[in-house]
């Protein structure tokens, strides 16, 4: 379980985030949405320890080795092959090169990249690189997954397919997830709970919404569920309100 309590974070004088509270129960999928520039990414960076918070407490009852962080970009090591990139985390956890690379190859195959293990990132397409990055994180078999707009750079078809693969994995393995996204439909289709961050600076949690759509879910078919359009309308109105607030101030 993840509990973020009263998180305040400042880069300069004025806090980006102020008093943010987020709770994600074990085995649940939560999303954090909000206007761009509101500090969504900063929340994840604070949780992973990449950013030191100014105040507040973050508790996570999962050991650091079981936390996976999927970045927005696909910053793979350019000088390592796809297989070596996937194996990197396992190598860091002390597996032998042979074992780590064998597992790396398995994960590449699971994500539809069989036979591409020897390619360098420069020799892969954007979608393929993204899948290598996902394989790199999933190969560690994390119990807790943090994702920062991991699919933002992908085209719609590839995006839907990768999202579906990922949601299938999350549901089967009962992973706990916190996803940061600006895509409302993606948030509704994937989550059990959605947190809405207000416009920054001094962004805080404005509201939270339970997504009571049964699982397992199909990313595309879920959109036809009556609750989907209702939630979408609510969230849209909230975010529009935040955006117009920005216009006033």
């Amino acid at each position: 379980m993840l509990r973020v309590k009263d998180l305040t974070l400042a880069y300069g004088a004025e806090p980006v985030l102020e008093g943010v509270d987020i709770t994600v129960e074990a085995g649940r999928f939560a999303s954090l949405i909000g206007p761009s520039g509101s500090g969504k990414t900063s929340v994840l960076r604070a949780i992973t320890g990449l950013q030191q918070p100014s105040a507040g407490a973050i508790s996570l009852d999962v050991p650091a080795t079981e936390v996976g962080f999927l970045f927005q970009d696909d910053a793979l090591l350019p000088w390592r092959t796809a297989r070596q990139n996937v194996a990197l985390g396992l190598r860091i956890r002390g597996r032998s090169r042979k074992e780590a690379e064998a597992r790396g190859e398995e994960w590449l195959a699971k994500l539809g990249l069989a036979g591409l293990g020897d390619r360098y990132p420069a020799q892969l397409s954007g979608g393929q690189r993204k899948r290598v990055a996902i394989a790199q994180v999933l190969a560690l078999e994390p119990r807790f997954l943090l994702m920062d707009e991991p699919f933002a750079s992908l085209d719609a078809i590839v995006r839907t397919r990768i999202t579906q693969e990922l949601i299938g994995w999350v549901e089967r393995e009962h992973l706990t997830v916190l996803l940061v996204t600006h895509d409302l439909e993606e948030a509704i289709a994937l989550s059990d709970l959605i947190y809405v961050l207000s416009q920054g600076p001094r962004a805080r949690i404005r509201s939270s919404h339970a997504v009571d759509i049964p699982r397992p879910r199909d990313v595309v078919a879920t959109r036809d569920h009556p609750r989907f359009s209702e939630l979408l309308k609510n969230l849209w109105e909230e975010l529009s309100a935040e955006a117009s607030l920005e216009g006033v101030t």
Partner: protein
Amino acid sequence: MSLRLNTPPVRRTLVLTVLVLIWEACAWLGWIDPFYLPAPSAIAKVIFTLFADGEIWPHLEATFTAAIIGILGGLVIGIVLGFTAALLPVLAELLEPVMILLNAIPRVILAPLFVIWLGIDLGSKIALALILVVVLIFFAVYNGIKEVDHRLRERVLTLGGGTGVMIREVYVPSVTAWVLGNLKIAVGFAFTGAVVGEFVASSRGLGYLLQFAQSTYNAALTIALILLIMTFVMVLFALSERLERRLLRWRYR
């Protein structure tokens, strides 16, 4: 199979050949004074003689020894200094201004000083080649480390990697790329250092021969030596390029 003739290399060779032939013809017709510009055939003859009677070998040995020790030593010292300066701010504080100064001045002005300190033998030539290469590589490594992609650092951190992993997986490959990117320039610098050092004061080497040719107003020997040095540097460039392509193959699609 049809031989492709209309390609840039073929066209270049063709134009060069025509120019050399015109030059030769002008010399034959007595239109140019061989005191200033000898015929290509005369220059070729000088080159042939240099090798045929073995006169060139000790000079080649001297220059190559200085240049190769200069480049290898320069790489090692430049990499070590760049790495430690990037990791130890205290050292960077001391080294950076010195390196900036050395980078700004034409470093060959140090040649006379090296002769006074180290004599007219190999030592002063190695020192000059070394200082030219060290400054170049120092900046390549130092800036390379400072500009390492922070996204890669964060990725390794979130995968649980410590300092050792960070150095092995992120820093060393980044620095290798920077150094290899500067390798060709370093080769040129090492030769400049060796030849200029010999030019200033020496008893052996291509620079010494060049100095001798100039003081005796021997244009044929001067041009022959310039062509020789160009050829050697081009060969080393080609080798550096192959090494670069091999080690940085991850860059290519």
